[in-house]
């Protein structure tokens, strides 16, 4: 049996304090010590674990962070003394986009690389902005491999990065003129991107590179930091550099498979020069998502650039001229993809997007909207305990990281990054399986296999009379 792509997830206990959603805030006086709450009511031994501290001073005081809020203790307390509430520390995590629930599920997925499974139905808002206003399709009768859950390893998640010629050209004598494709095949439609804010340390760069090797993908690394990496890691990184820096990194470029050049005035010439100097390398142009991105991509594609890494803001939005956030990347992607299709250039080009890709479903939905693959940034930090404090603005406030991310150990960090991507990979396969699609390459631009809020709501509720929220007191 041939080898198949497999991500080696493994349990790694978190070495940071996990903030739970629920906590006991009120244990009023007059407890009769009946111990019903501890022994009888709590199925999860939350109270027992907490009181372990009383017996062993070395044990860390665990607040009731593992509480599931089943409320059995509250309702069963002999004297009605207990209350459980939502932990304010939980609500403080993250920001408007990186919600506490995203952080918590990312922690859980990083523990062992498992898909989050739970009972009851969906518990969130009906829809939200951005990726949360898309539902993916499913097929009632088509399963890509016809063998239920056991066929998932036959679903391909590999993608190619690089220029793809639309046709071969031959000389009148029949000699092949088209140069061989330089394609970088990744087994996962995701690369590991730079952190969004300055927490970069050698540890993290090394961990991302090591994780990329295990995941058979690449990690984006500032060229200056690549020197510290072991040689064998270099094929798994994509150094990012400016046009004016390339002459300093000749040796590095000779050792890697992919490079990223920051968009600028000379970028076309730089990419052309690099492509001729390093014929086996794939070069992408890294650019911010702005209102002119669509035109810029078309322009650069026409002049020979075929791989783009488009970076939206941290919450997945484009950056307007005055710095304010604009449209969500899902909308821009549909534009970019549509324009490229219209111009007959889509299949020549690889689109990588980053920004706001917070959950596995965002990866699938970005690909549906037209990306070939995504670049993952903040979830890799969250896997190590990051709480996205103040949207990432508090890392250098002098009080230190509550999860000590800057001092994590290499193997620990690597495995937790592998775990989170492993969980994402399994979830992507769930989506592909439900849609009856056998490879992720076919998911790209499949907007007909997705349900967009704006369309479906118009179709379903379009003929209903409208009232304003004020008129119904909402």
């Amino acid at each position, binding site marked *: 049996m041939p080898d198949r792509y497999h991500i080696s997830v493994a349990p790694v206990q978190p070495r940071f304090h996990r903030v739970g959603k629920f906590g006991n805030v009120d244990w009023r006086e007059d407890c009769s010590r009946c111990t019903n709450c501890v022994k009888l009511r709590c199925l999860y031994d939350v109270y027992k674990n907490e009181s372990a501290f009383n017996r062993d001073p070395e044990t860390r005081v665990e607040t009731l962070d593992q509480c599931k809020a089943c*409320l059995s203790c509250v309702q069963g307390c002999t004297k009605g003394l207990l209350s459980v509430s939502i932990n304010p520390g939980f609500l403080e995590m993250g920001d408007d986009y990186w919600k506490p629930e995203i952080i918590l599920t990312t922690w859980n997925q990083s523990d062992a690389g498992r898909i989050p499974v739970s009972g009851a139905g969906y*518990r969130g808002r009906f829809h939200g902005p951005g990726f949360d206003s898309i539902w*993916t*399709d499913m097929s009632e009768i088509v399963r890509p491999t016809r063998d239920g859950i056991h066929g998932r390893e036959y679903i391909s998640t590999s993608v190619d990065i690089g220029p793809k010629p639309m046709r071969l050209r031959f000389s009148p004598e029949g000699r092949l003129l088209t140069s061989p494709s330089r394609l970088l095949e990744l087994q996962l439609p995701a690369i590991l991107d730079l952190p969004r804010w300055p927490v970069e340390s050698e540890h993290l760069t090394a961990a991302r590179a090591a994780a990329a090797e295990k995941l058979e993908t690449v990690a984006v690394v500032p060229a200056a930091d690549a020197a510290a990496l072991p040689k064998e890691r270099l094929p798994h990184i994509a150094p990012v550099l400016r046009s004016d820096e390339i002459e300093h990194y000749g040796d590095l470029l000779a050792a890697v498979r992919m490079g990223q050049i920051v968009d600028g005035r000379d970028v076309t010439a730089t990419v052309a020069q690099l492509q001729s100097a390093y014929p086996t390398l794939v070069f992408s142009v890294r650019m911010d998502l702005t209102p002119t991105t669509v035109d810029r991509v078309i322009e650069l594609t026409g002049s020979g650039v075929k791989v783009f890494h488009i*970076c939206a803001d941290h919450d997945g939005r484009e950056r307007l001229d005055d710095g304010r956030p604009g449209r969500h990347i899902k909308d821009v992607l549909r534009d970019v993809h549509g324009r490229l299709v219209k111009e007959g250039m889509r299949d020549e080009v690889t689109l990588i997007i980053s920004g706001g890709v917070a959950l596995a479903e965002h990866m699938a939905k970005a690909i549906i909207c037209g990306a070939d693959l995504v670049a993952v940034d903040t979830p890799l930090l969250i896997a190590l305990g990051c709480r996205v404090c103040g949207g990432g603005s508090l890392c250098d406030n002098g009080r230190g990281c509550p999860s000590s991310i800057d001092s994590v150990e290499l193997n620990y960090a690597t495995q937790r990054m592998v775990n989170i991507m492993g969980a994402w990979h399994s979830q992507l396969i769930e989506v592909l399986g439900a849609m009856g699609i056998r490879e992720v390459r076919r998911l790209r631009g499949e907007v007909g296999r997705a349900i967009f809020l704006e369309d479906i709501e118009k179709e379903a509720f379009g003929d209903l009379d409208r009232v304003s929220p004020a*008129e119904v007191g909402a």
Partner: protein
Amino acid sequence: MSIDAYPQEHVGREVRPAPDRYRNVLGKYKIDRSADCISCGKCVEICEYGVHQKPKGYAFTLRPQDHLCIGPECAESESSCINQCPQNALTMRRNPSTESMGDPRWSSDLIVSTWHMAETGHAAPPHLNSRTGDSGGGFDKIRFKFETGKFADPTPVPADEIGQIDLGLDLNRSGDNRPQVHIDSPVYGGGMSFGSVSIHAILAKARAMTAWNSFTCTGEGGYHDRLRPYDDHVITQVATGLFGVREETIQRVRIVEFKYAQGAKPGLGGHLLGDKNTPPVARMREAVAGNALFSPFPFHSVYSVEDHKKHLDWIKEVNPNCLVSVKVSTPTDVDMVAVGSYYAGAHIVHLDGSYGGTGAAPDIAKKNIAMPIEFAIPKVHKFLLAEGIRDKITLIASGGIRTAYDALKAIAMGADGVVVGTVEMVAMGCVRCACCESGRGCPRGIASTDPELMQQMTLEWATQRLINLNNAWREQMIEVLARLGMKSIRELRGRSDVLCCISDEATPGGGATESEPVFAGQVTR
């Protein structure tokens, strides 16, 4: 009528009080009584809701029954217990435990109001929002026009004719020679397998639906012998794993349901975790205890409408008197699926929307795969109308029907009736902690086959809770129909003109501006 005529049990539909089974009942508000209380009994005199009690002969006032408190509306008045207490010993606040329960789909108000209905058999008091959740979309964005005051009200049904309002539904509309199946209310119970929930929960569901002349469904875990006295009100589910499906379980019922997909995990099949596959569960499913059981997706013998028809014909052959229902999820082409089911010979198309309940499903599937039921109902209804076959098939909607109002909205959008599941669980004491699947299962003893946990709930109590809930829903449905001037639930079907939609508010721009990046996408400060 069942084939082998097992003696059927009669269950009455009388409403009786079925108070919460826990010692401390959760309400929306909490009343704290400080040590300054002198047990003068003033609060007992004042409170008409029974929050304060001092039984005869007691020296002290009892702990406040704060779940009965109606909140600020009363508390802020001059005559409230808070303001009248001579010692200022009473304070009121939102109950933090209640606030930690629920979620945007199922707000704590919805849970507490469902408990109230299950306890009393009547609608919840106005301080609880028992009509909509806080999810911001779907049913929560739809209102009946009469709720807004913006539109002219229709002529209501005269008071003396309200008693004649009919909620009944005939399920066989195909015109074939199979028997008619009539249900007294447009609601029946969803499939929950033995294994995913306790036998008490299964039997309570069956008994309550027997009382209300409707149906419950076995789910995919086999047909428990204890369900036999309710055969006439049970739907045998045939799902892809075929766990516990035998010819006699198909022959003894009046409706057989083919489950193609489940809304909460569309396209993914079912999964009973090993922990819940206890020896009795394994026996029913003819499987090995302790092993995780997968119900694969899809039916491997169905590639087309013709294959689908072959399946239905097979069931119809095995039981010549049953109706066949087809349970499907809500893909983009759900309208075509419904038409296909009609041509295959189904009597009922049961659409299960993506936000529905489950014992265990990947979170990614619950949120993202397939469309919510609110979108699927009008899509299918309009398509069936255009095809000219709407009156030949019964359209049932499920997957996120939480309240009587949701059910009525679903019907006004085009469904004939609805299937509920989660609301039954909530009535039996579920707090939606979502731990149905882990370890020993439900900590509240509903979705668990753990012999110790399931004893937390008695069958009699659970049955009464569900009977009461059905009564409360029925009262609310009749009230709404009366306001709409309709004498039958069948008149409401497809009358989306009685509904209105809350328009979207401007989406906030949000987000802080950032300084120039070192590399694109990276932020420096």
